[in-house]
């Protein structure tokens, strides 16, 4: 493991923790749930960010977070009461911390800019002020508080603890150089107070250790040394931290302390597993509900013997009817392992359990590896299809049966592989809580955010890319959608506006809705604007929903008042093009006075689809199965032509259709029977006329090269089992093309009459 990848992990972890802090603060502000629990969660997140930053020597982050942590700790102890100013100050600190992490870690700057530091200082000062701590008293007052109970901070507050210096010496400034060193044992020795009286002199042990190897480092820990009056010259107060080069086995080293084992706390940590490595190892271990002991054994800081002894002791206690104490506590008590390591292990376990409870287990996997896997599965599907063809051709019943079993399995593998990329959209939604909070303060509107369908899963890449368009829509809804409070009350609406984010699956695509209960779109104003911009003719008759969707046209903005939230009309068209780049669509519905709904349709995934293979002339096309409603034979006698539009009457319903022959310019001799595939997208239904139907076909999408970027109506290609190429039909594009062709004809005609 190199430092870069460790830093990368730290960066990702920090980003997640920052989200946790955000959510915790939001919950605190809303006064939802258990306050103590939220405080603990925030504290833990801040503490972890700080702790890991310390390992990397990111001092700016450490010193900044330290202040935040102190205040949080005082809040946890109830010494500082929670009020809105304090929470705002914490929000500000959280943002500063986020920026610190981004500049120092992500951008690789070794130090924060002085500007950022000044910002951070201000945020820290504001926080102290909000917490009611005056500037001068803070360090001492907080330190004093920290020392008294056994808080996690006590060690750090005690700055002159030589063990800290030792750790710096032990790990060095640069973790990498430490790793390259020869193996070294770490011994943490706390002999019993009576050792001297019993004739067990630590000096003798150290001298003996010299015979087993070379003592590299000794730190004498004098923190337990009492004041002169309480000092008993015959009692041992000193502790020792020893770094030792040695080829001896752990058992051999344990044997050295055989006679003092009972009364002392002796921790022996084997070489090549630096303390920081343990902590990191435990944190990075694949998440599973491992038992603490196994973690420690796996980390090498515990021998099986120690584990067994501890487990036996734990069992004995519980059999006596006493409460079994946590394993970690017993291990520390028995002196088997250094406390920070146990803490890390316990933390890990708790974390694992929490996560399992919350969202099953999760493993961090490099996205590239996942893509590789999906690519391979894609090849497998393709080859499988070829093998099935060959099997059928061979006519051997056994081979055919084997192949069909195999294909079934491949299909399952494919589905599991694809599911790997699926993540719930909930996490993305959660982030908007903070956006809504900040904006509602900025614009002085009371707004609640309702989240629904957070469990809806979609492809990770889609989730990442949908964030920006969603952000724009949410900001827009708050800025333009929700009316000022006075106006809402005048219109008989609740004073508090509602913005709703909703996600659900709909026929193989995912629908994400951003809705508000604001004033809705003003059709008249849009119309006037569109005419002004020359988008439509003045006399043109358009339905309301057609008018509404004009707001996605480039350069269109109806905002009368330009605020710094909504920008200057460079919004909706960018939103639309972003979504279209992802293969999605956006539409808006609105009702004057009661709000608007922006509805985004996104493909679930971009990798593999269930397709339906059709043939037109000599060419093969794949139509995504989810969009297909039915296939019927084309009865030419039913074709109705009306002003350049062709329909058929499908069970008393008007169905416009388009012939793939005409569309793609494929010439072939007319065959007797043509088929019509009825596809839909949203509420629109369209028929596609094709020659032959070949049935279902699992399709691995191969993107078309950049040359074909301009090609509309085709979203990709795929290789068929026989090696031939089939083009994948982009149903959404086709439908909108059919519709817009009508629209163009209509408007073209109108223009002629003008």
């Amino acid at each position, binding site marked *: 493991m190199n430092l870069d990848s460790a830093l990368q992990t730290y960066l990702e972890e920090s980003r997640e923790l920052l989200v946790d802090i955000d959510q915790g603060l939001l919950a605190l502000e809303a006064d939802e749930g258990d306050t103590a629990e939220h405080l603990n969660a925030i504290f833990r997140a801040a503490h972890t960010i700080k702790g890991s930053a310390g390992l990397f020597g990111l001092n700016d982050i450490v010193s900044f977070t330290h202040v935040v942590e102190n205040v949080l700790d005082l809040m946890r102890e109830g010494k500082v009461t929670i009020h809105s100013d304090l929470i705002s100050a914490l929000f500000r600190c959280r943002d500063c911390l986020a920026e610190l992490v981004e500049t120092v870690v992500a951008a690789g700057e070794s130090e924060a800019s002085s500007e950022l530091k000044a910002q951070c200082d201000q945020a820290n000062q504001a926080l102290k002020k909000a917490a009611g701590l005056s500037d001068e008293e803070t360090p001492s007052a907080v330190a004093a508080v920290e020392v008294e109970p056994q808080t996690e901070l006590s060690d750090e507050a005690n700055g002159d603890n030589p063990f800290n210096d030792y750790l710096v010496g032990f790990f060095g400034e640069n973790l990498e150089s430490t790793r390259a060193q020869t193996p070294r044992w770490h011994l943490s020795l706390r002999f019993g107070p009576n050792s*001297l009286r019993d004739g067990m*002199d630590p000096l003798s042990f150290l001298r003996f250790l010299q015979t087993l190897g070379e003592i590299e480092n000794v730190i*004498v820990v004098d923190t337990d040394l009492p004041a*002169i009056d309480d000092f008993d*010259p*015959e009692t041992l107060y*000193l502790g020792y931290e020893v770094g030792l080069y040695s080829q001896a086995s752990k058992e051999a080293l344990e044997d050295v302390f055989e006679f003092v084992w009972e009364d002392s706390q002796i921790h022996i940590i084997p070489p090549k597993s630096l303390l920081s490595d343990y902590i990191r190892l435990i944190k990075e271990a694949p998440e599973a509900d491992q038992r603490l002991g196994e973690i420690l054994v796996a980390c090498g800081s515990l021998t099986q013997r120690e584990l067994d002894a501890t487990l036996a002791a734990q069992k004995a206690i519980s059999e006596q009817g006493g409460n079994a104490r946590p394993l970690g506590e017993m291990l520390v008590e028995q002196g088997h392992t250094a406390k920070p390591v146990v803490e890390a292990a316990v933390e890990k376990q708790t974390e694992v359990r929490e996560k399992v409870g919350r969202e099953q287990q999760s493993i961090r996997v490099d996205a590239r590896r996942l893509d590789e896997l999906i690519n391979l599965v894609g090849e497998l599907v393709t080859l499988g299809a070829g093998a099935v063809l060959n099997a059928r051709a061979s006519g051997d019943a056994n081979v055919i049966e084997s192949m069909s079993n195999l294909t079934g399995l491949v299909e399952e593998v494919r589905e599991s592989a694809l599911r790997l990329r699926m993540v719930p959209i909930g996490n993305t939604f959660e982030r908007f809580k903070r956006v809504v909070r900040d904006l509602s303060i900025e614009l002085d509107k009371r707004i609640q955010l309702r989240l629904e369908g957070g469990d809806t899963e979609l492809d990770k890449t889609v989730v990442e890319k949908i964030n920006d368009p969603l952000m724009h829509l949410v900001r827009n809804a708050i800025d333009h959608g929700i009316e000022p409070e006075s106006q809402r009350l005048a219109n008989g609406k609740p004073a508090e506006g509602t913005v709703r984010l909703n996600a659900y699956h709909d026929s193989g695509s995912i629908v994400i809705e951003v809705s508000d209960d604001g004033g809705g779109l003003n059709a008249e104003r849009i119309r006037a604007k569109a005419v002004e911009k020359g988008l439509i003719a003045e006399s043109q008759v358009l339905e309301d929903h057609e008018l509404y969707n004009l707001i996605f046209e480039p350069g269109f903005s109806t905002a009368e008042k330009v605020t710094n939230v909504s920008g200057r009309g460079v919004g909706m068209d960018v939103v639309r093009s972003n979504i279209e780049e992802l293969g999605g669509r956006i539409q808006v519905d609105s009702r004057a006075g009661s709000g608007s709904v922006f509805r985004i349709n996104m493909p679930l995934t971009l990798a593999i689809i269930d397709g339906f293979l059709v043939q037109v002339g000599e060419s093969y096309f794949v139509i995504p199965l989810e969009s297909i409603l039915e296939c019927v034979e084309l009865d030419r006698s039913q074709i109705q032509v009306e002003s350049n539009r062709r329909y058929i009457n499908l069970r008393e319903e008007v169905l416009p259709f388009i012939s793939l022959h005409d569309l793609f310019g494929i010439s072939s001799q007319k065959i007797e029977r043509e088929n019509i595939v009825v596809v839909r997208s949203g509420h629109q239904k369209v028929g596609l006329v094709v020659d032959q139907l070949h049935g279902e076909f699992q399709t691995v999408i191969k993107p078309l090269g950049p040359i074909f970027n301009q090609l509309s109506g085709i979203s990709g290609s795929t290789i068929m089992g026989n090696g031939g190429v089939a083009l994948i039909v982009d149903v959404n594009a086709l439908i909108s093309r059919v519709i817009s062709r009508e629209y163009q004809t209509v408007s073209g005609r109108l223009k002629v009459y003008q």
Partner: protein
Amino acid sequence: MVSYQVVENVSRVLIEGDMTIYTASEIKTPLWEAVQAAPVVEVDLSQVAELDSAGLQLLVLIKKHLPDGSKVTFVNHSQVVIDVIELMQLAAYFNDPLVLSGRSTLN
């Protein structure tokens, strides 16, 4: 055996014999008295014949709990003291000038 003399605000302390678990109790009180006698303290360790953890602990004690404003220096370390300080890597902790004796350089 601890003896001291105050000359011009400097307390010159001499420790003779063993500084071990057996003598630690006897040494503690006179040593502390000597350390408090003047703001500048110079402890001569040339006559220390044996030093164990109990003795070392005494040295750590006076270094750590020195009365405010005082300054203590250990001088003329005997070889046994140097050996212990080296083993425990306490040279930096005490921050006293250590004179390497002929023995360790010659051997």
